[in-house]
């Protein structure tokens, strides 16, 4: 598999993301935000975490207008798979590729810790290697991770099985972490080819460092 990893001014998870996919045996290529085209023959685009454009105005709001995001939008509209992690999730919602928006955490803190997540739906390319109801331990690190969507949007998400992950306890019961609507940690689009989550699977690759549950997530993209 060939993975394109985007890089904006202020991105800081691009190398961890490359490391993760290369550890799984894939090739990766960094793509600078000024590029108007994505590399050929890619199987996945990852919009990694960080603080693109210093989070000015709103997290992700400026990065979404980068030349490369036009190419990503075309790629996604043609059915290509796109994964947004943390700031990448914020960029994809700002770009309208994912529904909803990410607000400041309810307690205003930057939250950085390991967090249990419950797999809500696994009939998608991202989580098909995980069981429904399975609990995964993946780190989170964000200030603006408070997912918001209005009621009609939420009903649509539920009906189409677009809610992928919720913050949970070790038994899989939802817990309030940052104020997200029904503790949502990750969603996908209606067509199920664009995925966004606040937690960092690329930081959960080694049991020695706390968890290797990220591997199972990222393996979902292997055909």
């Amino acid at each position, binding site marked *: 598999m060939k993975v394109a990893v985007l890089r904006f001014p202020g991105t800081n998870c691009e190398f961890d993301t490359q490391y993760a996919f290369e550890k799984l045996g894939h090739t990766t290529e960094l793509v600078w935000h000024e590029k108007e085209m994505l590399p050929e023959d890619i199987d996945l685009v990852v919009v990694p975490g960080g603080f693109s454009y210093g989070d000015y*105005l709103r997290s992700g*709001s400026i990065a979404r207008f980068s030349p490369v995001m036009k190419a990503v939008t075309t790629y996604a509209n043609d059915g290509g798979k796109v994964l947004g992690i943390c700031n990448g999730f914020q960029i994809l919602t*700002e770009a309208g590729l994912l529904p909803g928006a990410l607000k400041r*955490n309810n*307690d205003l803190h930057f939250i950085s810790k390991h967090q249990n997540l419950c797999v809500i739906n696994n009939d998608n390319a991202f989580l098909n290697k995980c069981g429904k109801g399975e609990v995964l331990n993946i780190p989170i690190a964000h200030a603006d991770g408070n997912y*918001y969507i209005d009621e009609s949007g939420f009903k649509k998400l539920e009906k189409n099985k677009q809610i992928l992950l919720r913050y949970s306890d070790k038994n899989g019961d939802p817990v309030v972490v940052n*104020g997200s609507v029904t503790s949502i940690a990750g969603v996908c689009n209606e067509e199920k080819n664009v995925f966004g989550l606040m937690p960092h699977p690329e930081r959960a690759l080694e049991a020695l460092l706390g968890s290797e549950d990220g591997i199972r997530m990222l393996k979902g993209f292997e055909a």
Partner: protein
Amino acid sequence: MTKAVVNVFLKEGVLDPQGKAAHHALDSLGFDQVDDVRIGKQIIIKLDTDDRAAAEAEVTEMCETLLANTVIEDYTIEID
């Protein structure tokens, strides 16, 4: 030259965590008449035109495109 003042706030019904924190702080300082606090941002734009209607149309487009995220935010525009 026309000056536009844009105010962006979270929509009614969308919890404003910063407003809430400031409200708590005001309460604990003894300002006990405070009913609600909302925190937004103000963006001041100077436009190179004297056509107020055109300026307002242009700034509205700026708000819809970039300055506000209409999923969670409302905005107002005042043309000076």
